[in-house]
């Protein structure tokens, strides 16, 4: 398959929402190591909102689907993660107007744009021990594989996101709540990076199917 279709995108979002709901205790526990242990619970509200948005099933194109998901997240999750995840989907949606499928190259362009917008909004960059540390290497793989079949490209992105999330355990936090006790943090994967790696794992599964 050389394209990512609207039904595959819906399957991706549905799987991501389910994974977040299944995994929210683990995400809370990761967050508790440096933050207030709320990341899983907050994102679970977003996951429920994604499920509601998907249930409406009125999307005519990729933009409509992703915009409804982005607005659902922005207005349900709260905190920095709500603003950042919401911005991700809203930026992706900018690339889906009038489209019912994306090429690998479209996918790379959309995620690259989302990455830039999120770094700007959150005033963060790669290496600050945030969700960006899983997103940025995934986007880099989408770039490397921009002429490959979608499934191959998304699998590479998922592996890179997971590895990026793992590497946050060695990073000193420089943004968000994790930074407050930065002299004492370490050894734990960043909760936001962990949830971001779930997003790409779900994308990879949806494109293999």
């Amino acid at each position, binding site marked *: 398959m050389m394209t990512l279709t609207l039904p595959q995108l819906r399957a991706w979002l549905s799987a991501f929402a389910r994974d977040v709901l299944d995994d929210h205790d683990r995400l*809370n526990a990761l967050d*508790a190591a*440096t*933050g*207030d*242990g*709320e990341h899983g*619970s*907050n994102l679970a*509200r977003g996951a429920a909102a994604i499920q509601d948005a998907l249930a409406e099933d009125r999307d005519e194109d990729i933009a409509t689907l992703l915009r409804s998901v982005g607005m659902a997240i*922005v*207005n*349900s*999750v*709260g*905190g*920095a*993660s*709500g*603003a*950042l995840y919401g911005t991700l989907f809203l930026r992706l949606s900018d690339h889906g107007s009038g489209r019912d499928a994306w090429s690998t190259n479209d996918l790379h362009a959309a995620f690259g744009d989302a990455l830039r917008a999120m770094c700007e*909004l*959150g005033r963060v960059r790669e290496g600050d021990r945030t969700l960006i540390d899983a997103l940025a290497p995934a986007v880099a793989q989408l770039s490397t594989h921009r002429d490959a079949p979608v499934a191959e490209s998304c699998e590479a992105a998922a592996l890179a996101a997971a590895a990026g999330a793992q590497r946050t355990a060695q990073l000193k936090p*420089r*943004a*968000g*709540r994790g*930074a*407050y*006790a*930065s*002299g*004492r943090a370490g050894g734990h994967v960043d909760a936001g990076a962990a949830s971001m790696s779930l997003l790409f794992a779900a994308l990879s599964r949806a494109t293999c199917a």
Partner: protein
Amino acid sequence: MQKFMRTADTAVSDYLHGLARAHPDLIRYDPERGIVVRAEAGAPKVAIVSGGGSGCEPLHTGFVGQGMLDAACPGSVFSSPVPRQIVAATQTVDQGHGVLYVVTNYGGEIMNFGLAGEILGREGHEIEKVVVDDDVALDGDLRHLRRGMGATVLVEKLAGAAAESGAPLDEVAAVARRTVQRSRTFAVALGPCVHPSTGSPAFELPAGQMEVGVGLGGDRGLSREPLPPADAVAEALVERAVAELSISDGARVIVLLSGLGGTPELELVGLFGHVHTALERRGAAVERSLVGNYVTSLESPGAQLTVLHTDDELTRYWDAPVRTRALRWGAPA
């Protein structure tokens, strides 16, 4: 930890319903839009809107009323409000004289108030923002992350009074910014809080230890030290809080000593006496003071000291009438 609640998910909305029923003369709660607004708008003036994660009560919702906030946007526990709430609050309370957002310096609050401001700026609302970042615990390359703590109460009070006096938006914002510039806070905790969703303590603190330089929301501090006697705790709080203020002989200060939610009055008021002594020893004149639970972190035992280097104008706004759940003084309007 046992808690009075139905479920973790309903804890905040139950609080808000209860708050509105306890104070029907002061506030209204709109559950559809998730905002708390003043019961009566009063004479046209600059509107003041704030909001933040719940769990820090009475912060923001307990300060809605005459002389302070026109609206508060409560997020879920320790998580910022969402843009939809901030947009609704702004549309409800903007009387055409502009709106001041009091925004605490946390990523969530900055980003969500920022997103709301972008949406509303296009609708023609005139909005100013003041960012509260009084927490001195973070310094050096973390200075930009300084959290909004006790000074938030002072900013809401003083900007609220300025707005009530009929000052235009730029002047109200200037009072708020001056309050931030002249305020510093330092906090210590004797134990963690328990997030209602997770049900477990935010951190473990062994007996005899004090967590130094904490924030709100169960954020851990900079370091952990043996708990000294209360006069030494007061000395340490004052030392850190005034270090960046020009406190010399005769400097006039307004002092807020807020419990973090779990420290008894007996201890907190006792601690304040030592704070007062330590400030006077440095030549400061304690002009006004406020001691109690004003910016909290659920049931966390602990205290935060906020010192404002005041002047005639700020003290006059401090003394102006206020009528909210958590602060009430002066003649009722």
